[in-house]
């Protein structure tokens, strides 16, 4: 699978905007690396499928503590447990980031649709659709690291 590096930038930009909007915190981007693995690398992973002129998948990985800290900021109150409400919040954040990124992709001429998010619990969980190359960008936040995984290619490639 050939990956187009230009596809990751809209997600990095969108993630920064959404995290700042939801939590007031600034994010610092790390370096992009290429991985091929079928397993999740963080305790909580939000996964979204992308179809259309660009297709593949996008994943956002968090430690559970990071996810809880972010959700606490989003809720405006402490979140001691990663329960269904917290799961819903972190999934919604992934949904909003991907939606904003899709707008940028559309401006570049790539119309795409996004499937509703799925939350995967556990590090090292095997997901068959993860078994392809993906670009990974760690983003540092005051709440811990968020890992953006982008495995997208232009349709027809």
């Amino acid at each position: 699978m050939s990956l187009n590096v230009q596809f990751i930038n809209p997600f990095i930009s969108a993630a920064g905007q959404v995290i700042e909007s939801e939590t007031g915190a600034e994010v610092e981007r790390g370096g992009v690396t290429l991985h091929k693995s079928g397993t999740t690398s963080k305790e909580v992973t939000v996964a979204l499928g992308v179809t259309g002129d660009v297709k593949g998948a996008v994943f956002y990985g968090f430690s559970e503590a990071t996810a809880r800290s972010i959700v606490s900021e989003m809720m405006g109150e402490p979140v001691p447990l990663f329960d269904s409400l917290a799961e819903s919040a972190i999934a919604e954040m992934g949904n909003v980031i991907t939606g904003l990124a899709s707008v940028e992709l559309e401006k570049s001429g790539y119309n795409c649709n996004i499937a509703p998010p799925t939350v995967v619990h556990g590090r090292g969980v095997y997901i068959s659709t993860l078994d392809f190359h993906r670009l990974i960008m760690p983003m540092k936040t005051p709440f811990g690291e968020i890992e953006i995984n982008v495995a997208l290619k232009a349709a027809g490639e």
Partner: protein
Amino acid sequence: MAKILVVDDAQFVRVRYRKLLGGEGHEVVEAGDGQEALQMYEKEDPDLVLMDITMPVMDGIEALEKLRERDSEARIVMSSAMGQERMVIKAIQSGARDFIVKPFEPETILEAVDKHTG
């Protein structure tokens, strides 16, 4: 104060709406998808519907069209993480009064509610 039906498959979003709008004295009723929204609309007769687009079972655009078929005066504001122009156009053509793109500021929601229930 208004009765507002919030429709979103994300529990977090519904809770956020409930806190925000309930704090302003509005009555909030909820649905988790478009099909449930049709049932709740009939049961609760809300003054305004705030509805997401991307939802399981029945999406927001289909629910919007069905609600407008049943009640041509239904006041519906759509919201979506997908801010693409075609979704806005589709929603407005289907009778939405307004369109809010996520992530939204609380003031944006409150202004929309005031505008369409005032």
